[in-house]
């Protein structure tokens, strides 16, 4: 007998996500992904100074902080045809690179690991054997039996209080957990190490951008952080050295802890290389420009589209082929809800038709989410590290080929294993390692520029609105940790006339479209085995493999002229 369940809140993500699933015969037969929060930041942007937009859009998300700043600044720069100085390109690459690296490691250990790692089982581990295991997979220095015993004692003391805080009430002991106690203990140790590591390495954002989360340093036309070897108030030799040290610390942890752990854990869960594939279409905007010409052909991660898992055929990406549907989202379109709209002409009129809270279940036959359904050539697309790595791998990027090859051969699986929950999680590691290695090059190039006396960080030629055309529009893109991010802006008379963001989690988390095609989350859940309906651990595995970020996904608003809501008197 089929049974419908709701998992709400989906925890260990950013934002508010609800999954409803119909389970029959121990498998998911049908699934619905719903975002249950809405803020309306694009409406708020209307009429404001385009140079301020990045401060607002950065607040789409505090986890993948910086990414929306990047996309909206590029959109304004595209609209106004602004060329940024080379130093600004390099500083942006470093900030974005380390954002991806830090975000991926936090995702693996703090958001995703507990789907695979049973903390309680770690209490039964033999510290001696744990040390042997750790030393067999990595040269990482913290690997003695004494070290693991100390971690185990700390966890024991914590569990002994009987108050487990954030670790209470979870699925510990679930039959789907497969790691031996020693692997669990090793992972718990690294969970704690990563918690310390992340706050250290992200100081790079503070050095280059004042603080993290929400660095305050981006500018339309460049960056606000001055560089000058002869000043103590700018990026100088001291600060370059500190950034270099932190970048090395970042790379070392990724090479010696994250990647070995990823491979060790994955080797126990190879069945998940056949689960959670999803739509099989992948979109990547490409990013991390390697020179300052401004062309899309210089990206470290190339731009491209893969349809139907056909990696032999990477197609060119054309942003005009993107449209968004609201057929099953809580909005209405003036031209009817069955038709898709390109973001430049996008409309977002909230139209909540769901049940009045409190409710048990949503009406999934009608509108059921605050996320829209973006489509490329009317097809649902998966975006994220897997899409990025697949496009790079299929386009012949040497780094991607080498690392993907290493991962596949270590696990003894073929390339088809990439199209899965496990493949998605592994690709995030590949992506992280590629960027952890590349950022050091960008720092070196910045140092070289400074050495040659090139100190420009901002192009102010078109800073003043008086220099702008009366009307302009632009597309800004970025490959954020969670994938393809696009902002579309229309500027009229020096102010924002329309702003639309189509973000990674909109692509992945969106509901069904006008023709009933499921979004990537929904599609990936179909066929997933569920051992215990009361403890749907398997749903978390696949959903977390996408690294959901819902505050980002529900930005929306506004089409032109939609003065929907009354101004609240403050």
């Amino acid at each position, binding site marked *: 007998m089929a049974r419908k369940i709701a998992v*709400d*809140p*989906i*925890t*260990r993500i*950013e934002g508010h996500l609800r999954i409803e699933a119909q389970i029959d015969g121990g498998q998911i037969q049908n699934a619905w992904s719903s975002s249950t929060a809405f*803020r*309306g*930041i694009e*409406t*708020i942007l209307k009429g*404001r100074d385009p140079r301020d937009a990045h401060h*607002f859009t950065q*607040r789409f*998300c*505090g*986890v993948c902080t910086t990414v929306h700043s990047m996309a909206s600044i590029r959109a304004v720069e595209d609209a106004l045809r602004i060329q940024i100085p080379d130093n600004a390109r390099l500083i942006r690459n470093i900030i974005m690179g380390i954002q991806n690296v830090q975000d991926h490691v*936090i995702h693996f250990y703090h*958001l995703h690991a*507990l789907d695979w790692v049973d903390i309680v089982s770690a209490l039964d581990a033999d510290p001696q054997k744990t040390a042997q295991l750790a030393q067999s997979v990595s040269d990482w220095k913290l690997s003695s039996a004494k070290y693991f015993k100390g971690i185990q004692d*700390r966890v024991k003391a914590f569990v002994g209080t009987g*108050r487990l*805080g*954030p670790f*209470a*009430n*979870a*699925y510990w002991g679930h039959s789907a957990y497969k790691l031996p106690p020693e692997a669990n203990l090793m992972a718990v140790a690294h969970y*704690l190490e990563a918690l*310390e590591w992340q*706050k250290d390495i*992200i*100081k790079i*954002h*503070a050095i*280059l951008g*004042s603080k993290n*989360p*929400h660095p305050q340093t981006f500018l339309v036309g*460049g960056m*606000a*952080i*001055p*560089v000058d070897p002869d*000043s103590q*108030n*700018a990026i100088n030799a001291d600060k370059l050295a500190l950034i270099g040290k932190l970048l090395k610390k970042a790379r070392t942890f990724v090479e010696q802890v994250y990647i070995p752990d990823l491979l060790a854990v994955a080797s126990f869960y190879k069945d998940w290389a056949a689960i959670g594939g999803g739509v099989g279409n992948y979109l990547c905007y490409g990013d991390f420009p390697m020179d300052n010409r401004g062309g899309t052909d210089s990206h470290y991660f190339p731009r491209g589209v893969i349809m139907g898992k056909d990696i032999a055929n990477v197609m060119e990406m054309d942003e005009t082929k993107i449209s968004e549907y609201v057929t099953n989202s*809580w909005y209405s379109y003036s031209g009817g809800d069955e038709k898709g709209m390109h973001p430049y002409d996008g409309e977002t009129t*909230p139209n*909540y038709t769901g049940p009045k*809270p409190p409710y048990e279940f949503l009406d999934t036959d009608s509108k059921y989410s605050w996320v829209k359904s973006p489509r490329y050539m009317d097809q649902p697309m998966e975006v994220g590290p897997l899409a990025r790595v697949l496009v790079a791998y299929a386009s012949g990027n040497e780094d991607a080929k080498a690392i993907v090859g290493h991962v596949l051969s270590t696990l003894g699986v073929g390339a088809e294993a990439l199209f899965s929950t496990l493949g998605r999680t592994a690709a995030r590691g590949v992506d992280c390692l590629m960027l952890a290695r590349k950022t050091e090059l960008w720092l070196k190039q910045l140092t070289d520029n400074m050495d040659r006396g090139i*100190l420009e*960080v*901002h192009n102010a030629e078109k*800073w003043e609105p008086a220099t702008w055309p009366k009307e302009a529009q632009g597309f800004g893109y970025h490959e954020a940790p969670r994938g393809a991010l696009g902002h579309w802006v229309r500027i009229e008379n020096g102010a924002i006339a329309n702003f639309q963001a189509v973000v990674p989690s909109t692509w992945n988390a969106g509901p069904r479209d006008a023709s009933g095609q499921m979004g990537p989350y929904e599609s990936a859940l179909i066929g997933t085995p569920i051992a215990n309906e009361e403890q749907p651990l398997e749903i978390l595995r696949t959903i977390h493999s996408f690294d959901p970020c819902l*505050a980002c996904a529900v930005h929306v608003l506004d089409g032109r002229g939609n*003065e929907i*809501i009354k101004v*609240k008197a*403050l």
Partner: protein
Amino acid sequence: MRKEENHLQEGLVSEEILQRWELRGVSRRNFLKFCSAMTATLALPVTMMGRVAEAIEGDNRPPVIWVEFQGCTGDSEAFLRANQPTATELILDYLSIDYHETIMAAAGHQAEAAKHGTIKEYKGKYIAIVEGSIPTGADGAYCTIAGRSALDIARDVCGNAAATIAVGTCASYGGIPAAAPNPTGAISVVEAVPGATVMNLPGCPLNAENLTAAIVHFLTFNRLPATDSLGRPKFAYGKRIHDNCERRSHFDAGQYAEGFGDPGHRQGWCLYKLGCKGPETFHNCPTVRYNEGTSWPIMAGHGCIGCSEPQFWDTMTPFYRRLPQVPGFGIEATADKIGLGLVAATGVAFAAHGVASSFRKGDKLEADQVVKED
């Protein structure tokens, strides 16, 4: 810490407590350093260190329910960057974080059960932390968790807590969702749950140091720190950024950066002409800084955007427009003149705020004299 100083401080904290922390893997040096830093942040006399140490004893870990509504998780992320103590220590040793969606292992109804369990078992005793604003439009459908509206959850969680800490500007004052035209009818925690005991820690995001300091204050005295008329603790929001700014001498000397990357900008001159809102903003950024004291916006060459002030998205924008020019500016102009000038210059439908009184007058904290005007 110097050796003799260490010895002196050791005398303030009982040997028993130091030994217990050592057993838990926290060295006495680190523990003393933490207590000392906390005592200083809270502006307490050093003799209070012993009491601070007693208050953060592990066995007394207070339960915490952390809920996020219309937020971006930036304040949670800031919390993960905490250093004194670190997030790991906060999670394992100082607090019992029974509900926090971003980090908790449980999901769905098991997560809900954990929250309800704490509300019931520790009614009137736990700390509620709220991140994000609360929408009132569409009958609450603009933000639901487990099918319940944010407003409903906030009343339950904050209404039954010993105290509520609103983290970030959204929870404190509505923040970005409440920026004009406030499409979802977003309100602050104080507005949503008027009867609750609420302290605001605005900032976008808040500074983790201020959160840990506030928590330790609560543990030490069993009440929240003293607040100003905007509900902000005086220890963190009592002074104007402009008055503590490391570039203040350049302002006084009339040395301004004229453009990003120009020689003045590279030499750390005043950012007033590039739009800095430091003269209008009350926050301890210049002294505490962010990410373990690494930097803060003005130090990194970008003006303050006033992110801890109510309605800053409306009153402080455009961010790159300088605060209005006033007579005598550049010598010792008072910030109240700038404030009045701002009101006159913007003159728009948004709520604007002026500064009613000047600094260096009277003995009241300046932040108490900020008034809201419709």
